Structures are given as C-alpha cells and as structure tokens.
C-alpha cells in the first residue's frame, strides 16, 4: 500500500499536466445529495456508495465519482467550451468481501464542447495516454454510439427498441429481451394465458395502490401489440451479435463495420464518426493501427457512457483495476439538465494515481 501523501503528490502532478494543457482546476463537495445520484443510477448505487444521513438535508452520499458534481457546476455557471481538471478521493462501498479499495484518489479531465465532439474525444484520450505514456499500457476502446444506433435501426416496434435501449448497459437482460423479441425464447410465465382472455382485468380484485387501472390496461394493450408483432429477424440478430463480438484493431474494425453497415444502414453515421475519430486520434499521434476496439466495451460500467469509451490497462498486472477509464456521456448531461432543458456534450476520463505509483514502483525493481 502506497503512502497517502505520495498518492496525493502524484495526483497533483497529473493534475498539473492537465492544467498545463489549459484545463481549469475545480473542486467538488464530498457530500452529494443522494436524490440526484439515485435518480441517475437507480437503487444499485445504494449498494455501491456510502449512504449517510443529514438531519436537515436528508440522505447524502459520499461522492462515488466527480462526473455528476462537475457537470452540475458547469451547467450552473460554466462558459463554453470548457476544460476542467480535478483530483480527490471517491468512495465506493464493497458489499462483497473483496480486496478492492473503498476509498481512492482520482484525477480527472473533462471537456464540454458543443462544436467539435470528435476532436474532443480524441483530445481526452490522447492527453490521458500522454500522461501515462511511460507505463506502456494497453488501451481498449469502444463506442456505445454504434450499438445504440444499431438498436434504433432494428426493423421492429418502437416499444421493443425502447426496451432494448433501456437495458443496453445490462448485457444479460438485453440478451434475454433480444432472444424473446427474436422468438428464440418463450414468453414469461402466464403471459399467454392472460392475453387469451377477452377481459384480463375481470375478477382481478379491488384496485389498490397508485398504479391505476388505466396504466394496467395500457400495458395489456402494449403486450397485445408485442404478441402480434413479427419477430426480429435472424439476420438482424446476427448483425447485432457481430457488432457486440468485435474485438480487433481499430483499422480492421472499420473495414468490418463497413461490411456490416451494408446490411444495417442505420449504423452508417456512427461508423463515419468512428472513422473520423480514428483520424483525429492519428493526428494526435495515437497508434490507431494497433489500437484495440471491442464492440461490447463500456456496457457494464455504471457511468452512463453513450459514445466513445476507453480504458488503460497494465497487461502485466491483471490483478490491478484499470489505470484510467473514460468516455462520452452526453445522455447523462441531458438527464441532469432536464429540469431547465439544458444539455452539453461531454467527454472525460479519470486516472487512478495510486495505480500509477504502484506500476512505477514495480518497474523500478
């Protein structure tokens, strides 16, 4: 375990790197209102964050990340475009007994830029890669935008697409839904019998609770529509599987995606963006010929990424968490800015200085 003072010093050094590149240093409160985080991440965050209670303000959480407070700060009074850097501890409760730290430092770099999102993606990746370059790490990248575009383009009902999009960050659930919509898995227990009735709501007993009879009737209607809809075709499911299974260098992936886009034109724009990003990365000196791309990358994080995603890993130390991770989270800013109709395209990443130190120490031996 490295000394906390050393970790803080390393964090400050890394933050200095981002400041030198023009980022404004910002701070965030450690205590965050629980309501906002619960609204964004759902009940799961309760298992992963430290929840505490303030007698006046109610439930609060020790910040599980900086993203939310930095976006809020920017939306409140930020000028555009904006580049921020920050450092500090984040807190993650570990429900299962693991060796993972429940409190650790992050140094972050975030870009809010409406006009040149692809350029911003490349900038964040390249700056973080530069900052970590002495460590010779493996970078993995992905693009949630591709998958989102593919699902939006499926030839099926809007309700099915909405259900798939809602679970895109829960791979098992997504798969179960896709199998059902493709007619490859049985309907949930009891569904057929219920739909076979002329009036399923007959003999249902008294109407209790907030969920009204009209809401129940609406869902029955939706289920009837679903039962009548044609299954998603095998060809479309296979194309989706191809997308999800991609695991190649960026250059090879691009040619593969051009092939897929012939049968799945909905992803064409996303492929164009991927290509433009590869070019922007190349211009910044990133070795895109050897840059790994994974079709499913970014699907299991809770960070709400919906575009470019990346992570840096020490291949010689699979026991360590990623040294850095990041991505684009435009949707998160839409949710946070919902009340005032604000949104701001945003991309950023975080480095864990403790891991950087540990790798440095390992290399010196």
């Amino acid at each position, binding site marked *: 375990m490295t000394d906390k003072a050393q970790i803080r010093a390393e964090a400050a050094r890394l933050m200095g790197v981002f400041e030198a590149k023009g980022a404004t240093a910002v701070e965030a409160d450690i205590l965050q209102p629980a309501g906002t985080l*619960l609204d964004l991440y*759902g*009940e*799961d965050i*309760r*298992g992963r964050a430290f929840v505490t209670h303030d007698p006046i303000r109610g439930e609060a959480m020790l910040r599980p990340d900086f993203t939310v407070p930095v976006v809020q700060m920017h939306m409140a009074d930020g000028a555009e475009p904006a580049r921020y850097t920050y450092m500090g501890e984040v807190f993650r409760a*570990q*429900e*299962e*007994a693991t060796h993972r730290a429940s409190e650790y430092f992050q140094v972050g770099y975030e870009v809010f830029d409406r006009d040149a999102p692809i350029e911003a993606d490349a900038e964040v990746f390249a700056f973080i890669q530069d900052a970590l370059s002495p460590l010779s790490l493996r970078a993995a990248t992905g693009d949630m935008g591709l998958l989102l575009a593919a699902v939006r383009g499926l030839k099926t009902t809007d309700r099915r697409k909405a*259900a798939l999009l*809602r*679970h895109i960050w*829960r791979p*098992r*659930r997504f798969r*179960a839904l896709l199998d059902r919509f493709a007619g490859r898995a049985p309907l*949930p*227990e*009891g*569904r057929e019998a*219920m739909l076979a009735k002329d009036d*399923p*709501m007959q003999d*249902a*007993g*008294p*109407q*209790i*609770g*907030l*969920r009204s*009879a009209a*809401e*129940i009737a*609406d*869902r*029955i209607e939706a*289920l009837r529509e679903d039962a009548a809809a044609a299954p998603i075709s095998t060809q479309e499911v296979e194309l989706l599987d191809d997308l999800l299974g991609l695991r190649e260098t960026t250059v090879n992936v691009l040619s593969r995606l051009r092939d897929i886009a012939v049968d799945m034109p909905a992803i064409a724009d996303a492929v164009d963006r991927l290509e433009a990003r590869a070019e922007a990365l190349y211009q910044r000196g990133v070795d895109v010929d050897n840059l790994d791309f994974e079709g499913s990358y970014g699907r299991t994080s809770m960070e709400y990424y919906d575009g470019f995603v990346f992570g840096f890993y020490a291949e010689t130390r699979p026991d360590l968490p990623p040294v850095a991770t990041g991505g684009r989270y435009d949707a998160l800013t839409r949710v946070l800015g919902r009340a005032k109709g604000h949104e701001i395209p945003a991309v950023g990443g975080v480095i864990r200085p403790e891991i950087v130190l540990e790798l440095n120490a390992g290399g010196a031996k």
Partner: protein
Amino acid sequence: MTLKIGVPSKGRLMEKTFDWFGARGVELARTGSDREYAAAVNGIDGIELVLLSAGEIPRELAAGRIHLGVTGSDLVREKLGGWQDKVSELALMGFGHADLIIAVPKCWVDVNTLDDLDAAAAAFRAQHGFRLRIATKFHRLIRDHLRDHGVADYQLVDSQGATEGTVKNETAEAVADITSTGETLRANHLKILAGKPVHKSQATLFKSRNADWNESTRATLATLSGKLGLQS
C-alpha cells in the same frame, strides 16, 4: 474457556431450538424467572447459552462474541455482507421455514414475473415521475436479487412492519417480505410473483469464523457435534 452459543430469546423460534437440541440429547433450558434472560445447557460441559434477539445473532457471530448461533438464514444473508467469510452453516434445522418473496397487487393482471415488474416499473416511472417503490426490510437481498435479474427503475422504501399494508396506503407499489402461508398477502389483495422465491429461509445453526477457536472450544465443539450428529 467456554463455548458460547447464541439462541433466540423468545417465542416459537426459541422453543423449537430448545426442542431441536433436546431431541439430540443436549438440553437447553431457561433458568431463573420467566422474565430473566438466563439459560443453561445440560448434558455437555463447557457451553454457555446466551439468549439474544434473532436479529442480533448474525452481528454477534460476525464479531466473534459467540461461537455458535441459531438464527434464520435470511437474517444472516441480509445483515452480513460477504456472510460466507464470517460464518459457516453447521446444520439446517428444519423449522422456521419462510420464503422471502416479492408481491404486487392482485389487480396487476399484467405483472406475473420479474420481467413484467421491470417493464411495469419503466412505465410507472414515465407516468408518475418517480421510481416504482418496493417496501421491504430486506434491502440487501432484494437489491441483489433485482440487480441479478436486470430489474431497473425501482426504489426500495424501508418498512419494518405491516409491510403488506403499504400498497393500499399508497406508500409503496409492491412489497418484498417473508411469508410462510401467504395468507396476509392474500388478505391484503397482493399476489406473489411467479418463479423461485428470493430466498428460502429456515432456522440454521451457524458457526462463527471469527470467534476464539482455541484447543478447549474446539474440543467442546467436537463433543457437541458428535451429540448433534454433525461433521465438525
């Protein structure tokens, strides 16, 4: 040094625990007045009986303040994160059976499975502007279960009693609770979701991994295990 065994301090769970040990030649008995929480063990030396609330036995086991303890398997899983690192199961005792289940109003004819619950929760949130509320006191077990099954757009609201009434009172849309016969649920116009229960609970004899296991307490456990017919 004595081996401490914690058992529930009242009610049917205490009586059945006493019966279970008695049937195996280890007599547990309360001593003193009816109201005094004191007890003794006959038929075996070196054991001290500690009467505790069933809900506190998991914590005492985890802290190693008792060597053995009898409580519901649901309580250990709910109250101890990473429970298998803290306690081990010596015997499933075959009583105190109860299922931890999720129930919704019977009038929700469109909701029969967790899959339906997830879809209904999405629609509910869109309609009402907040996440569908599930009243429970088993926060950890329910949250893990719903996460494993990919249910989103719900929130847990704490309910320490009369949980079945929360739907009618409109403080929750669904409930997650322990039931053995389902009668209270039916009386409150609720139905249990199809599929396996979240957890099938029963009274269980647990061994603490953190208690002081020295030569003398290990020897006592071996003698006790012999009498109870357990592998120690």
